């Protein structure tokens, strides 16, 4: 070990160890060309960040779930559900109630965690396949919020609520700040706490984790609760941005969240992943999208290009990992 000089650093630098970063840079440069000169405008860049922040935040929780060996398909429906119920809750207070807003923030986060715990309990305690559990709850959350709202818009009556989601702080939209904050928090949890390590261990080999005196059930459950929490944050950001929730909101969030995680290098089979990677993955998805829009690709083909890019991104990583 010892001190590394700059020279040895560059000597040790192996592209394959930094394939994600390289891919990011390459993509950025391409986007700058394709979208010249709009792409590099501050306005455009913050736009991209805001656009990806909603699914990005959830992607961070999803990363934890995937590392632990699970998957959560219910996040999109859950987000609409939590957002909708939270607005009902908010409307119990006066139209300018700050207290109402404060309590709704709390309510939203807690409700998200409760929903997440529901998934978590079924996966961890009843040992059901996460794919199936969350496929089921995906239908359930969506169905319930449609039922409660009679499939109509759920409008907030609070005039101040909208300021959260559409607010800007130090030139960055508030959802983007949330994205960074949740990212840093979960990065620390994953890399610098025993719990983070237990998630990796359990996702890699449950049996071994058990023999290492790890409370496997708990370790498998908590990532779902964390994901519920991130869903709560996004639900807040989203519902307050529009000051309303439609029961069909947030459809397909699960795919973007998963894609961000996987592009960021998280193994679908569990055991390994990175929060920073997911953050980069989410931003890359945003850049690709922006590029397609700015580049004027046929609208019908945009999805195809996006699919292709995801595949190629992952392909490059796999090959670099030398398997």
């Amino acid at each position: 070990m010892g001190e590394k000089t700059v020279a040895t650093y560059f000597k040790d630098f192996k592209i394959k160890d930094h394939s994600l970063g390289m891919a990011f840079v390459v993509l950025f440069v391409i986007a700058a060309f394709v979208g010249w000169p709009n792409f590099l405008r501050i306005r455009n860049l913050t736009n991209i960040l805001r656009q990806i922040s909603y699914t990005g935040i959830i992607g961070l929780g999803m990363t934890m779930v995937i590392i632990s060996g699970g998957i959560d398909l219910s996040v999109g429906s859950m987000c609409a559900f939590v957002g909708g119920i939270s607005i009902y809750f908010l409307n119990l207070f006066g139209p300018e109630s700050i207290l109402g807003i404060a309590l709704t923030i709390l309510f939203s986060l807690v409700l998200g965690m409760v929903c997440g715990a529901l998934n978590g309990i079924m996966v961890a305690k009843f040992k059901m396949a996460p794919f199936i559990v969350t496929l089921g709850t995906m239908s359930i959350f969506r169905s319930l919020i449609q039922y409660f709202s009679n499939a109509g818009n759920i409008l907030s009556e609070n005039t101040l609520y909208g300021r959260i989601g559409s607010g800007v702080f130090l030139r960055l939209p508030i959802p983007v700040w949330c994205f960074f904050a949740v990212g840093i928090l979960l990065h620390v949890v994953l890399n610098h706490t025993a719990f983070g390590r237990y998630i990796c261990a359990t996702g890699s080999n449950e049996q071994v984790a058990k023999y290492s005196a790890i409370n496997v059930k708990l370790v498998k459950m908590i990532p779902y609760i964390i994901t519920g929490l991130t869903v709560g944050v996004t639900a807040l950001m989203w519902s307050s941005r529009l000051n309303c929730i439609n029961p069909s909101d947030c459809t397909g969030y699960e795919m973007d969240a998963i894609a961000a995680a996987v592009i960021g290098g998280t193994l679908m089979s569990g055991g390994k992943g990175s929060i920073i990677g997911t953050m980069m993955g989410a931003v890359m998805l945003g850049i690709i999208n922006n590029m397609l829009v700015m580049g004027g690709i046929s609208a019908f083909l945009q999805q195809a290009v996006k699919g292709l890019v995801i595949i190629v991104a992952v392909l490059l990583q796999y090959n670099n990992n030398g398997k």
Partner: protein
Amino acid sequence: AGAAETKNAIPKIGIAVPSPDHGWTGGVGWWAEKAVKDFEAKYPGKYEFKVLHADGYAKQLSDVEDLMVWGMDYLVILPHESAPLTPVVKEAHDSGVKVIVVDRGLTDTSFGYINLAGNNKEMGKVSGIYVRDYMKKNNLTKYVAMGGMPVVIDGERMNAFFDEMGKDASLVNLAGGRAYDFSDWSTQKGLELMENYLQKYPEIHAVFCQDDDVMTGVLQAIKESGRKDIKLVFGGAGSKAAYEMIMHDDPLVKATATYHPSMVYDAIAYCLDVAEGKKSSDFNTAKAPTAVVLPSVLVDKSNVSQFYDKDSVF
């Protein structure tokens, strides 16, 4: 030409529509592209167009943001969903973009834009009148109805439809009261729903399904069941397939009520008229939207030839 003044030397026109999640929106996309092609040919090099298709309103929201960064002067938008798109469209308006909203309107009516739409209440009403009268005339009493998706315009149509049906007490909605299921405006779902209805209700006389794509599925289910009790299937919107059936005296399909995706073409044409100075751009500074309503017309054997366009995808 005395065009309305814009930021760009070559004015930029941004068009945001939903991506083709069913036949009708497929038609919207097609008519939007067709308009762009036509007007590019008509005014070569004079305008820049960008058409964006969004698979959800979150995507559409970011599409509008992207169009702002691109620097559009005009926005023609068919909002995926009214409420969530309203703030961003307002933001565009406030930054000087002239806005034309098509079909599904905005929730904020305190600023100036063109609201070009079909008449959903009228569509429900026209349909209701036709179905009611037809049933009466042929001594039919039992009907079922299908909605599209749980969105505002859908409710408007269904309510207007049931208002008309309610005027004759002898007509019974088999599902009870004003109850109905959603077809997602998709053929597949319409087929499945109809199959279930056929099982559930031993006798059905008429089906209102509000959309011609859905009607295709409904008809297929009826055909396969071999049942003869159904005498009328009424869709809506005015698809090519429906027009053809009306033309060829289909036993079940007698008429439809227009609500045509080509309205997006009309909206783009309107936009160019403004840009060319042929229409006033004052709407932009007004304190309320200017409504341009395309009527919903009953199309039957007598007038179908006026509406049929054999090149349309819808």
